[in-house]
């Protein structure tokens, strides 16, 4: 940075509304996880609630640290970060231990770290930097291509894991940040057409279980109520039987009697919908939307493009994961492994998303006061 103007951080600007909303969601999630695992001795023994609280605490500390650090630091070290992340992912791919059928985790001995979660944050930083530096070139398809290749440098390893859903998150991050950086409308149209045709071309290259999930979603077998569509059917039963006001906390039959699978993470939305009903679940969705809007507010307030793009990236990450997770629960999308941000059980995902919030706070703390 050659500019002598530095923007001092001002904790007066700290977004307490955003912090409050995030805490509300985490508390909501912990409460729901506690209800979801009640009666299942094995899960209770795993101390999911305690672990989620520890991650939330650690995440909050990380968030405050990241908020305190001037976000522009990340722009200056984006290249080394890019290289290190690729090396990390490549190592995981080659050495990686197989867990849940795919090499997605690093076992540090204490906790399992999911590098793809960290990779999302790194990608946001790298793309924010790339787009900031090349914003005026984004009308040019070649530069759009270069931004895509940069994205794929990381994404390819995620795809190879194979972790299709996170890879899609990354492509969505790239696309949204490209859009914010000034993607032309005719190019957008081109991408839309591409986005429609690509899945058809790509389908034969999907792994077996991915193909099956997509087919199950598109053509559910009416006779296979206990087959592959069992989980989603149970989710719909949970949501529908919640009614207006829900069956009450700790009283959802689908949750407490364990008909709903992975009700503490992937299907926590359905669990909440059964116990808290339409009113409760719309409220939760409202809080999440509020969080996204606060992130977008930071993008608007940001003193520079890099900060704005960081905020847009974080907002996109939260928004897309939320939309996909809810879409799956409502049977509007094929099943994926994306969790509900802040609410679902999952340490790595909670940590990375709180780091994202830290980035947004950092941007807000250093925004330029509009002077009139």
């Amino acid at each position, binding site marked *: 940075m050659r500019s002598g103007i530095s923007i001092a951080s001002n904790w007066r600007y700290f977004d307490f509304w955003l912090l409050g909303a995030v805490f509300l969601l985490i508390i909501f999630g912990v409460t729901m996880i506690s209800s979801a695992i009640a009666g299942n001795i094995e899960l209770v023994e795993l101390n999911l609630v305690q672990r989620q609280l520890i991650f939330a605490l650690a995440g909050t500390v990380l968030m405050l640290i990241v908020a305190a650090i001037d976000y522009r630091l990340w722009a200056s070290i984006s290249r080394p970060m890019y290289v290190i992340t690729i090396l990390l992912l490549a190592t995981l791919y080659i050495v990686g231990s197989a867990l849940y059928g795919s090499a997605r985790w690093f076992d540090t001995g204490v906790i399992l770290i999911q590098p793809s979660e960290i990779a999302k944050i790194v990608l946001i930083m790298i793309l924010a930097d790339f787009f900031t530096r090349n914003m005026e070139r984004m009308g040019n398809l070649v530069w759009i291509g270069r931004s895509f290749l940069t994205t794929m440098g990381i994404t390819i390893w995620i795809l190879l894991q194979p972790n299709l859903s996170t890879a899609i998150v990354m492509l969505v991050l790239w696309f949204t940040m490209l*859009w914010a950086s000034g993607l032309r409308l005719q190019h957008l149209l081109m991408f839309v057409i591409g986005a429609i045709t690509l899945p058809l071309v790509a389908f034969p290259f999907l792994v077996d279980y991915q193909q099956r999930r997509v087919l199950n979603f598109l053509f559910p077998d009416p006779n296979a109520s206990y087959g592959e569509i069992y989980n989603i059917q149970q989710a719909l039963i*949970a*949501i529908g039987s919640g009614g207006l006001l829900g069956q009450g906390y700790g009283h959802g039959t*689908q949750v407490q*009697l364990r*008909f709903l699978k992975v009700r503490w993470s992937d299907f926590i939305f359905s669990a909440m919908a059964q116990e808290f009903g339409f009113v409760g679940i*719309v409220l939760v969705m409202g809080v999440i939307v509020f969080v996204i809007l606060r992130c977008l507010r930071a993008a608007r307030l940001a003193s520079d493009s890099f900060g704005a793009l960081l905020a847009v990236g974080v*907002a996109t990450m939260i928004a897309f994961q939320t939309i996909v997770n809810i879409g799956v629960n409502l049977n*509007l999308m094929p099943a994926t492994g994306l969790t509900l941000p802040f609410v679902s059980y999952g340490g790595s995902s909670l940590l990375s998303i709180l780091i994202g919030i830290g980035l947004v706070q950092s941007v807000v703390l250093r925004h330029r006061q509009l002077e009139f």
Partner: protein
Amino acid sequence: MTHGQSTIRNEVQYWRILAFVVALGLIFSLFIARLFVLQIMQTVDWTAKAEENSTEEINIPSLRGIIYDRNGVILAENEAAYNVVITAANLPDDDGAIQEIYRQLSRLIGVPVNLNKISPENPYVPCISEHGIAQIAEYGESSTPYQPVAVKCDVDRRIAMMVKEKSVDWPGVDIEIQALREYPTGSLTASLVGFLGPVPAALEDFYVEQGLVPNRDKVGYAGIELQYQDVLAGVNGRRVVQTDVAGQELRDVQPPISARPGLSLQLTIDARLQRAAEDILKTEMDDWNRHFGDLRYTSGVVIAANPKTGEILAMVSYPSYENNRMARLIPAYYYNQLVNDPTNPLLNHAVGDVLPAGSVFKLTTAMGALNEGVVTPDQIISTPPEIEVTERYYANDPGQARKFVDWNKAGFGHLDFVHGLANSSNVYFYKLGGGYKDEIPNGGLGICRLKTYAAGLGYGDAAGIYLPDEEDGLLPDPTWKRINQSESWSSGDTYIASVGQGYVLATPVQVLYSAMIVANDGKFIQPTLIRQVIDSNGEVVPMWRNADGDLIREPAPGSFQVSPFEPHLKWDLTVDPLIQEFGETTIRGCEPILGQTKTVQPWVFDVIKQGMRLAVTSGTLERQFENATVLAAGKTGTAEYCDKYANARNLCIPGSWPTHAWTIGYAPFDNPEIAVVAYVYNGGEGASVAGPIIRRTMEAYFELKNIDSGTVQAQ
């Protein structure tokens, strides 16, 4: 105003962020709409599905009623059977510990740890299929981890107790107690009491509607167990419980409906007399078989009843089967063995076998001939060894001469009525039934009148003893023969029918009815096997039998009381005009004159009873009743037959067919309280094998009576 460098200006266009917000708004609106549809509009359907998920209906088996004899001896009861079961969810976590439990359990109950993998081709069927303990436990774990699965059924009590003791150290292993039907009297009463079996596939819908559970609940397959299934079975209870995804029961969702135990039945049978009658039948047949040095007599029937009350005191159909072997399942090899047995042990021959009655049927001819004035009691009829009559198929048929022979090749010379009956002279009854020249003019009694009198004595129609095997028998007439044999009725057919041969067929119990009606002076008391119906508290349940034969709780028009037992007069031939008058009997068949019916005159029975008493004192049963203290009256029968078994052994030689042995009797002759029929398949001459059976059965009856009244001490 500060003019910053381009690199530190926020160049992200605001409208692009707004577009993001709009897209977000659209998507979340879609979600809310979808939630609205699911949670507000369709909530009733989804709630129903959620309930269907988590509620399970449990059918509680009811206890089947007990069957007693008239003195309270148990003929059928419920016995606890012990099954070794494993509840997979309760097994220890450690696989080594599980294997150790399997090994120890295997040593104790003798089921191998590993045997025959469970597959669709070799499925697990509780108590039947053979699998190792590990395979069954694994099956239980994958299907219903919280439900016990049977590893071995019906272990003996000692092993059950040992397993129960060990169950503290062997979590997941337990003993399940199941009610099994047991028949303490076994084969003695099997043909009467019957046995149970699984709900048959063909009747599954019917029984499921009644609340039974196929593959668990059993239903009557024969005898009383089948006939009174509704009464004995009770009503299964029902619980609706909440279960979790693994099937563990959590709580009752609805107030449970407990099972209503079945009602118990007390029969009129006296198990002691039944035992005596069976022993008498067996020893009598054995004695003769030893005498012949040949297994000639193999099966027979003895039935004893009180003619004044209609109560059946003993009903032996021998050989029978061991109904205890059917308790858990019906073994295929045993069942096939029974089905292929020429003596047909699965049939209750007492009510279900239709046989030529032979000379015992002469009571019918006698009653008809006396009442119609075909013959007077004092009229002397010549009874040569044989008579020759012209067999005509139609009125002007020139006919062919046919000989009808007496069983006594010497002939009887001349006989009056009582001696004709006492000696069972065939020629005497041929003449009465079919007429003979001027001696018995106008064709004698004739087939049509013979049939109406036979019906009066209980032949040709099931009297309603209410057993599943009960048959009607057959009383032929010209119309029947035209339809079934495509031939006209001949005069010879009438002669043959007059002595209970030819087309006439009767069940042993019908033969007994004829003796009971005669003994009771024409009064037919409804024969019955039910003495009373008892509820689970031991209280007598009042019940009536309606016109359809079903037991009902309240009296209805046309019904009569069966519990507690009350004798029910079915008909009285001397009062009820049951005898049909016929017009001219032509080749077209019998032409009843509508509205013209009559009774039987009371003196007719006195004369027949004299003849039957004379049979015992100086007639066909004289030798068998030598020095008898029982003052009996009786009638013998030697019925020619030719069935597929006789044919197969080339016994059906024309003019010399094999014969069944029959004897009926009652005692004391002046005030009858016991009537007995004995029938021995291929028993040869009636009196020789069947006569001693009825004498000894009567003696057994009076001996038991003396024991009961305390005049003789039981030994």
